[in-house]
C-alpha cells in the first residue's frame, strides 16, 4: 500500500502552480477578461425593500447613444430556481422583496453609456408593507414576503409557512428527563451579525459565444458545475446549450456560489448575439449582498454539580432577507452541531429561516457551524464562570468521543478534539498564562480564552479524470476551482503521489463545463477531502492501466510493479523499468490511446433515511476538529480590544502542502478577528449603511495578532493520504476564544458579535448597574 511507504510529493511545501502568473500580473480574473465587440452591462437594482413594480419603461434609456439592449423579467423564463428552496428568479417579477434585487439590466458600447442610460430607466413602484425584524416576521399578521411560498419546490422535505422559509427540528434522548437530572439550568441568548465576504476581486463575468457559437460564460465562481446547472435552469435550456468556464478567482469565502450575474449576462448576450461584460462596483457588490446571515441563538443547558451536561435545548432564528438562498443550508449545519464538540445525550434543536425585506443573505466561510460555535463555546465559559469551574476542565469533562451521537442521529467518528485542545493548551502556555497578572498599567487588562471547533468533513459528489499525453505527462480534469487556497497545487501533489510521478509532470486543466467532470465545488472545506479523493481514485484507475501495459512490456507480473518519478519498475529486478512516457507511447500506437483514468466519489456515508423535520443537511463522511486560544488586551477606558496572540491548532489528517495549510490557518484567524471585533454590515430599514471598504472595516496589517499556526496530522481513514479539509474551522474557534478572553480580562461578557468598543462599554455599564 502506498500509504505505508514514504510519501514523496504529498507533504512537501511545493510552490503554488499559479504563483508565477499571479506575481507577474498575468492571471486573468473575470474583470480582466475581454472579447471582441464586447458590450458593458449595468444592472438596475431595486432601491425599495418591498414594493410592487407598477411600471418599468426603458424607452428613454434606449435612446442614449451606444445603448444596445435592455432586459427585464419579460425576457427571462418564469421558472423559479434556488439552492435548497426554489424561490428565485433572474429578475424581480411583479414586485421587489429587498433592496439590491435585480430588476432589469442593459448593455451598451461603453460603461459610461450604460451608466447614463441606467439613470433614465423609469420604474414606478408602489410600496408594500415591510418587515425587517425576523422575530416580527414570524408573528401572525406580519407582511408576507413570498405569498406563493407553498407552491415552491425544494431539494429536501420542506416545512415552510408564513414568512418561515425553513422550519427544522432535530432531537435525541429525552430533554425533559435530562433537565430533571440537572442541578443547574442556564439560559442565554447570542447574536451574530451580517458579515460580508470581503473578497478583493468584485463579482464579475463575461457572457459571449465560443468558437462554435455556443453561449459561454467566463466567470469568477466557486462552483462551476453547479453554476452551469443553475444557469441552464434559469435560462430554461438543456445543459449542453450553455458552457461555463472558470477564470482566475480572486477570493470567494462563500460569496461566489452557483449563479448571480451569470444568467443576467447570458440573457443580454443571447438577445444581442454579442459578448457582454458585467463587473460590479464595490458598492454594488455589497448592496447586492449574499452576505453571511445574522443569527439569534437561544441556548438552555442543564448541568450537574459534578460538571456534566445533561440536556440542551437550542433555538436558532436566521434572517435570510428577501430570498432563502444558502441560508437554509447554513441552518441545516447549525442545527447539526447544536451540541458543539460535547457529549450531550439529551438535545432538542429548532431552527427557523425567516424571510424579511432585508438584503438577500446567503452564506460565508463556516456556513452555519460558525454561528452555533460562537454560542456554544461562549456558553461553556459562561457556565464555568458562574459555577466557579475551570473552563478547560469543564470542557474536558464533556468532550465528545467516537461513537457519540449527534442530534442529527449520525454517530460521530475520528474525533480529535482532545488532541487539538491538549496541544493548544501546551503551545500557548495556558497554565502559566491564566495565572498571569491581569492589570497591565492603569487602563489595560490582559485575558486569555479558548474556543473549540467541530465541523463536518465530506459533502456530496466529486468526480475527476486524469488523461495522459504521449510524452508521459498527465492532465487532471475536475470542476473544482482554486479560490486562492492552493488546492490545485495540492490536487496535483495527490495525483503525482498516487501515480509515482513528479509534481511537474502533472498539471490541471482550466475548469470548463464542456470537459471537466462534475464536482460540487470549492465550498464546505471539502476540496482537499472530496475533490482530493476523486483525484486520487482517478489516479489509481490510471495507475492500474499503466501497470497493465507496463507488465506486458516488461514481462513481469503487475503486482511486482512500482512507480516513482515517472518511471515504472520491477520491485524485484530494478533493471526492468520503463518510463510512463514509453507506456503511453506504446499504448497510442499499439493498444489504442494513452491512459485515461476516471472516478466518482461521494462524501457522505450513503443516502440515509430522513431524520427530524424539514432537515436540509446531508450527513458527512467524517468530522474535523480544532482549538483556538486567544490572548487579548482590553482598554477599559475606550473599550478597545487588541488581540495580542492566537494559537490555532488544527488536525488536518495530513498536510498535503504544509505551507498552504499554514496560509489557510493564518488567513482564517485574521478573518475570525474581523468577525469577532470589527466587521458588520449595518442594515437599517433594509438599507446597508456601510457599503464600502472605508466603513466596512476588515483587518489590515495594523489589526492583526501574532499567530502560532499549529498543524496536527492524525490521518483520517477516509481522506486522500489521510487528509481532511480546514478551510472553515480555521476562522471559527477564534471568535468565541476572543469573547472568552475578554471576560477573562475584565469579567464582562458580550454575547453579540462583533464586540465593538461601543458594545463592550455598554456591557461594562450594565454590569456596574447590576452591582
Amino acid at each position, binding site marked *: 500500500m502506498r500509504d505505508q511507504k514514504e510519501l514523496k510529493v504529498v507533504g512537501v511545501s511545493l510552490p503554488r502552480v499559479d504563483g508565477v502568473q499571479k506575481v507577474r500580473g498575468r492571471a486573468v480574473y473575470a474583470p480582466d477578461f475581454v472579447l471582441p465587440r464586447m458590450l458593458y452591462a449595468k444592472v438596475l437594482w431595486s432601491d425599495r425593500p418591498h414594493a410592487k413594480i407598477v411600471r418599468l419603461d426603458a424607452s428613454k434609456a434606449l435612446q442614449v447613444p451606444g445603448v444596445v439592449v435592455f432586459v427585464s423579467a419579460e425576457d427571462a423564463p418564469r421558472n423559479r430556481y434556488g439552492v435548497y428552496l426554489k424561490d428565485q428568479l433572474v429578475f424581480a417579477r411583479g414586485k421587489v422583496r429587498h433592496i439590491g434585487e435585480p430588476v432589469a439590466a442593459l448593455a451598451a458600447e461603453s460603461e459610461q453609456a450604460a451608466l447614463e442610460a441606467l439613470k433614465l430607466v423609469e420604474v414606478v413602484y408602489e410600496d408594500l408593507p415591510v418587515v425587517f425584524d425576523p422575530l416580527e416576521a414570524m408573528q401572525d399578521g406580519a407582511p408576507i414576503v413570498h405569498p406563493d411560498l407553498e407552491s415552491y419546490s425544494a431539494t429536501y422535505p420542506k416545512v415552510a409557512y408564513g414568512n418561515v422559509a425553513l422550519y427544522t427540528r432535530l432531537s435525541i434522548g429525552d430533554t425533559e428527563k435530562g433537565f430533571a437530572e440537572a442541578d443547574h439550568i442556564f439560559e442565554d441568548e447570542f447574536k451574530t451579525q451580517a458579515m460580508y465576504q470581503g473578497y478583493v476581486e468584485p463579482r464579475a463575468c463575461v457572457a459571449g459565444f465560443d468558437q462554435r457559437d455556443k453561449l459561454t460564460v467566463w466567470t469568477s465562481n466557486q462552483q462551476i458545475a453547479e453554476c452551469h446547472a443553475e444557469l441552464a435552469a434559469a435560462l430554461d435550456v438543456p445543459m449542453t446549450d450553455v458552457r461555463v468556464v472558470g477564470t482566475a478567482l480572486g477570493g470567494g469565502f462563500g460569496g461566489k456560489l452557483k449563479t448571480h450575474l451569470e444568467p443576467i449576462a447570458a440573457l443580454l448576450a443571447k438577445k444581442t448575439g454579442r459578448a457582454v461584460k458585467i463587473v460590479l462596483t464595490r458598492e454594488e457588490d455589497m448592496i447586492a449582498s449574499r452576505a453571511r446571515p445574522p443569527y439569534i441563538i437561544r441556548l438552555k443547558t442543564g448541568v450537574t454539580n459534578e460538571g456534566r451536561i445533561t440536556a440542551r435545548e437550542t433555538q436558532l432564528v436566521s434572517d435570510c432577507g428577501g430570498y432563502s438562498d444558502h441560508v437554509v443550508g447554513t441552518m441545516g449545519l447549525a442545527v447539526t452541531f447544536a451540541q458543539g464538540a460535547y457529549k450531550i445525550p439529551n438535545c432538542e434543536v429548532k431552527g427557523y429561516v425567516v424571510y424579511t425585506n432585508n438584503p438577500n443573505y446567503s452564506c460565508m466561510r463556516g456556513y452555519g457551524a460558525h454561528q452555533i460555535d460562537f454560542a456554544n463555546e461562549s456558553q461553556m465559559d459562561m457556565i464555568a464562570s458562574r459555577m466557579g469551574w475551570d473552563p478547560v476542565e469543564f470542557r474536558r469533562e464533556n468532550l465528545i468521543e467516537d461513537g457519540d451521537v449527534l442530534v442529527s442521529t449520525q454517530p460521530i467518528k475520528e474525533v480529535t478534539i482532545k488532541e487539538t485542545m491538549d496541544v493548544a493548551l501546551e503551545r500557548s502556555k495556558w497554565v502559566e498564562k491564566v495565572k498571569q497578572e491581569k492589570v497591565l498599567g492603569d487602563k489595560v487588562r490582559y485575558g486569555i480564552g479558548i474556543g473549540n471547533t467541530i465541523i463536518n468533513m465530506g459533502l456530496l459528489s466529486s468526480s475527476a479524470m486524469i488523461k495522459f499525453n504521449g510524452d508521459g505527462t498527465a492532465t487532471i480534469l475536475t470542476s473544482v476551482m482554486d479560490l486562492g487556497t492552493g488546492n490545485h497545487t495540492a490536487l496535483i501533489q495527490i495525483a503525482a503521489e498516487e501515480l509515482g510521478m513528479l509534481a511537474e509532470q502533472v498539471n490541471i486543466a482550466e475548469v470548463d463545463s464542456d470537459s471537466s467532470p462534475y464536482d460540487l465545488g470549492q465550498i464546505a472545506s471539502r476540496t482537499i477531502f472530496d475533490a482530493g479523493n476523486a483525484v486520487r481514485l482517478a489516479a489509481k484507475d490510471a495507475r492500474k492501466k499503466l501497470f497493465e501495459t507496463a507488465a506486458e512490456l516488461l514481462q513481469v507480473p503487475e503486482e511486482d510493479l512500482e512507480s516513482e518519478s515517472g518511471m515504472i519498475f520491477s520491485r524485484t529486478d530494478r533493471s526492468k523499468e520503463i518510463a510512463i512516457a514509453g507506456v503511453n507511447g506504446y499504448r497510442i500506437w499499439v493498444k489504442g490511446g494513452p491512459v485515461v483514468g476516471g472516478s466518482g466519489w461521494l462524501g457522505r456515508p450513503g443516502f440515509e433515511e430522513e431524520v427530524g423535520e424539514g432537515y436540509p443537511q446531508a450527513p458527512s463522511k467524517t468530522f474535523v476538529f480544532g482549538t483556538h486560544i486567544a490572548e487579548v488586551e482590553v482598554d477599559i477606558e475606550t473599550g478597545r480590544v487588541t488581540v495580542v496572540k492566537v494559537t490555532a491548532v488544527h488536525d488536518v489528517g495530513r498536510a498535503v502542502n504544509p505551507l498552504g495549510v499554514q496560509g489557510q490557518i*493564518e488567513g482564517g484567524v485574521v478573518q475570525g478577528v474581523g468577525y469577532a471585533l470589527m466587521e458588520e454590515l449595518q442594515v437599517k430599514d433594509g438599507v446597508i449603511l456601510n457599503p464600502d471598504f472605508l466603513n466596512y472595516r476588515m483587518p489590515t496589517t495594523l489589526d492583526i495578532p501574532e499567530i502560532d499556526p499549529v498543524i496536527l496530522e492524525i490521518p483520517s481513514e477516509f481522506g486522500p493520504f489521510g487528509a481532511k479539509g480546514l478551510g472553515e474551522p480555521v476562522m471559527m474557534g477564534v471568535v468565541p476564544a476572543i469573547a472568552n478572553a475578554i471576560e477573562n480580562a475584565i469579567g464582562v461578557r458580550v454575547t453579540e458579535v462583533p464586540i465593538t468598543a461601543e458594545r463592550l462599554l455598554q456591557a461594562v455599564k450594565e454590569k456596574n448597574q447590576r452591582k
Partner: protein
Amino acid sequence: MINITLTINGIVRTLAVLPEERLLDVLRDRLGLMGTKEGCGSGDCGACTVLMNGRPVTSCMVLAATVDQADILTIEGLEQDGKLHPLQQAFIDEGAVQCGFCTPGMILSSLALLQENPDPDEEAIKRAIAGNLCRCTGYARIFAAIKTAALRMRSDA
C-alpha cells in the same frame, strides 16, 4: 480630450485622455495592462497600487489628465530580462500569494518600501502595506516574503 505624455514601464507614451478618465482606466482599458486590479474604486483597498515617480499611489484615485510627464511602474514592468524581481520570487517562495488579486498592488507597495528602507523591521513593513487589503493570507506570509526579498536584494547589491 487632454494630451498627456508619460513613461509607463520604461516606455514613453503620448495619449489623449478624457477629463474623467483615471490612471487605472488608462492602464487597463487603453494599454491592456490588466495586472493592475480594481478592488474598490475609492482608494480603500490598494489593489490598484502602482508606483508614480517612485511613490505608491492608488491609480483609481488619480486622474490621468493630471499625470503628464509622470514615470509609472506597474507589475508588468517589474521583471528584468524574463527574470522575476526578488519581491515576486519571494512572494511565491514564502506562500504570500493566495487568490493573488491583491498581489500586484501589495508587491508595488513593498517595492516602494524597500527602495526607501532596504532593511525594514516588521513595524515598518506593517505600516508600508497598511493600505493594501488582503483577505486570504492574514498578512503573516507577506511579511515573511518582504523580509526574504529584502535580504536577497541586500546580498545581491
